[in-house]
C-alpha cells in the first residue's frame, strides 16, 4: 500500500480515536464513582450536537458562542440526568440503577425524536474547520488535525482538576470509598454532580466534533459512539482516565486500520469493537492500565 494512504488512514484513526477518548473519559469517571455504566452518556453527545445546531440556526449565534454554550448546557443536562434518574437509586441494587440508565437513554432518544423529528439534520460546519491543508504530502481537513489537539487540551485541563484541586481530590476519594469520604466532611452529592458535569461537558465537546466530522445529526446518533467509547474505557481499564484515552485511541486506530488493510471486513466494523471487548474481558478484565476494581457494595 502507498505510504501516503497509510498515513492518511493513521491520521483518520487518531482523529476518530480522540473522539472515542473524549466520550470514554465520561464513562470511566462515572463508573469510577458510582460503579454504573451510564447508558445515557452517548445520548448527551446527541443532545450537544442539537444544542449547537439550534444555537447557530435558531438564535443565529456565531459558533464561538454557540459551541461553548452547547457544552455548558450538556453539562447541566448531565447533572439533571443524575438527579432525576440515578440519585433516587443510590441505595438500590445495581441492577435497578442499570435499568434506570437504559430507561433514561431511551427516554432522551425518543424525546428528541418526538420534539425534533427523525429526519437527520445537517450540521452547519463553520468554515474554519472545513479547510483542507497538506500535511507531509497528505491532504487532510483541518478538523481532523484539530480534533486530537482539542482532546489533548481538554484532557490536560481535566487532569489538572483531578490531581491538583480539592474537588479533584474529593473525586478521587469518592472513587475509593463512599463512607470514609462522607466522614471527611465531603458533600458526596456535590462531588457526584461535578463528576457528571465534567464528564458530560467532555462528551459534548466530542459530540460537536463528531457532528462536524459526520454532519448528519439524528436522535440516535449517540448510540454507537457511546457503546464504542464504553468499550474503549473497558479496554483501557475502567476507572482510569488515562486508560480511557489510550483505549479510545487504540480502538479508533484499530477500526480504521483494519478496514483499510482488509477491505472485506468493512461490514463487520461495528462487530469488531464488541469482539475486542469480549477478548479483553476474557483475558484481562481489568483492561490495559486498570487496577483491580474495588467492589463498593
Amino acid at each position, binding site marked *: 500500500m502507498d505510504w501516503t494512504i497509510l498515513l492518511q488512514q493513521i491520521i483518520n484513526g487518531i482523529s476518530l480515536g480522540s473522539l472515542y477518548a473524549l466520550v470514554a473519559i465520561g464513562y470511566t469517571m462515572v*463508573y469510577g464513582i458510582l*460503579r*454504573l*455504566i451510564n447508558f445515557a452518556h452517548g445520548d448527551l453527545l446527541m443532545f450537544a450536537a442539537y444544542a449547537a445546531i439550534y444555537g447557530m440556526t435558531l438564535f443565529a449565534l456565531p459558533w464561538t458562542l454557540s459551541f461553548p454554550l452547547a457544552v455548558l448546557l450538556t453539562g447541566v443536562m448531565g447533572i439533571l440526568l443524575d438527579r432525576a*434518574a440515578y440519585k*433516587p*437509586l443510590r441505595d*438500590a441494587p*445495581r*441492577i*435497578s440503577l*442499570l*435499568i*434506570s440508565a*437504559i*430507561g*433514561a437513554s*431511551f*427516554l432522551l432518544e*425518543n*424525546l428528541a*425524536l*418526538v420534539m425534533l423529528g*427523525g429526519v437527520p439534520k445537517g450540521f452547519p460546519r463553520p468554515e474554519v474547520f472545513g479547510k483542507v491543508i497538506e500535511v507531509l504530502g497528505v491532504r487532510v481537513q483541518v478538523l481532523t488535525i484539530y480534533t486530537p489537539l482539542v482532546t489533548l487540551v481538554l484532557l490536560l485541563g481535566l487532569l489538572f482538576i483531578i490531581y491538583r484541586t480539592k474537588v479533584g481530590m474529593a473525586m478521587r476519594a469518592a472513587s475509593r470509598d463512599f463512607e470514609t469520604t462522607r466522614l471527611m466532611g465531603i458533600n458526596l452529592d456535590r462531588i457526584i454532580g461535578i463528576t457528571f458535569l465534567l464528564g458530560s461537558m467532555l462528551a459534548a465537546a466530542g459530540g460537536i466534533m463528531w457532528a462536524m466530522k459526520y454532519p448528519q445529526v439524528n436522535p440516535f446518533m449517540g448510540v454507537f459512539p457511546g*457503546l464504542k467509547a*464504553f*468499550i474503549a474505557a*473497558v479496554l483501557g481499564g475502567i476507572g482510569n482516565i488515562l486508560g480511557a484515552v489510550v483505549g479510545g485511541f487504540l480502538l479508533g486506530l484499530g477500526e480504521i486500520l483494519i478496514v483499510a488493510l482488509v477491505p472485506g471486513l468493512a*461490514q*463487520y466494523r*461495528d*462487530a469488531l469493537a*464488541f*469482539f475486542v*471487548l*469480549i477478548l479483553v*474481558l*476474557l483475558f484481562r*478484565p481489568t483492561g490495559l492500565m486498570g487496577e483491580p476494581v474495588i467492589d463498593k457494595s
Partner: protein
Amino acid sequence: MDKRKRNLILNGLAVAALFGVLLAFDQFGTNYQVRILNNMAIFITLAVSYNLVNGICGILHLGPNAFITVGAYTSALLTLSPAEKQMTFIIEPLIWPLSVMQAPFVVSLLAGGILATIFAFLISFPVFRVRGDYLAIVTLGFGEVVRVLCNAFQSVTNGPLGLKGLHPHTNLWWSWGIAVLTIVLVTKLVNSSFGRAMKAIREDETAARAMGIDPFKQLLLAFLISAFFSGVAGGLLAHLITTISPTLFTFFLTFNLLMMIVVGGLGSTTGAVLGAALFAWGGEALRIVESPIDLGFFTIPGIPGMRMVVFSFLLMIVIIFARRGLMGRNELSWDGLMGKLKVMAR
C-alpha cells in the same frame, strides 16, 4: 380434598377457560383482535423465559434479541419451500443444505429453539466469566453482533433484504399453546431445587457457593432454557408477521422485554405474564397518542414515536418509585387466592 389435587383441577379449569375464550375469538373475533392476542401470547413466552434469567437468577442479560433472531431465521428457512427460497435469495443464492431442506412448522419451531440453545451455549463461556454491568454489556454486544452477522451473511440470511413471504402458520392455538407450555415448565423449574439454587445465587452468590451450589451450572441451565423458549417464540413471531429482516431484532426488542418484566415485577412469573399482556394491550391502546385527535373545531396532529416516550418514562417511574413492579416477587397461586377468599368469607 387435598391441596395438590384441588390445584391440579383448578389449573385444568383455568386452561380450559382460556382456550374457551380463545375459541370464541377464533370464531367471532376480528382479525385485529386475533392479531393482538397472538402478539400477547408471543410476548408472554418471551417475557417468562427472559424473566427466568433476569428475575430469578438476578443477572442483567441484554441479549434475548440474539436468541429470537436465531430462532426466527432458523424456523423461517426451514418452512420455506426450495422454490420459494430460490425466488427470495436474488443477490446471493442460499448455501447448499439449507437450499433444499423443508420441514413442517412444528419441526422448524423445535429446530429454532435448539439452534438458539446451541448459540446460547457457545456464548455462555465468555458471558458468565463476568457479572453485573459487564455481563449486561457483553450480552448486549452479542445481540448487536448477531444483527451485524445477519446483515453480512447474505448467503444464509439474505442480508438486509430479509426473508419475505413466510406462510402464516402461527395461529391462536400455536401461540397460546406454547405460551402455556412455557409458563408451566418455567414454573416447575422455579419451584424445583434448581429454582431455589438460582434464587440463592441471586441473593448472594458467595453464600450460594459456600452451600455447594455451582453458579456457572445453574446460570447456564437458566440461560439455555431461556434461549430455547426465546428461539421457539422467534419462530412463532416470524410466521406471524411473515416478513423478517435484521432491523426487526434490534436492542429495541430487548428493551421492550425488559420493560415488561420490570413493570410486572422482576422475579415473578405471574408478573412477567401480566407485564407482557399489558404491553401487548397497552401498545395498541396508546396508538391514540400517535394518531390525530379531532376536537371538532381543532385537530391535534398525532406525534409518531410518542408511545416510546410514554413507555420509557413509565419504565423509569416504575424502577425509581415502585421498584417491585406490579407483583414484586410474589406469584399468583390457588393457595394464596383460597386464603384470601376464606378471609373475606369470615
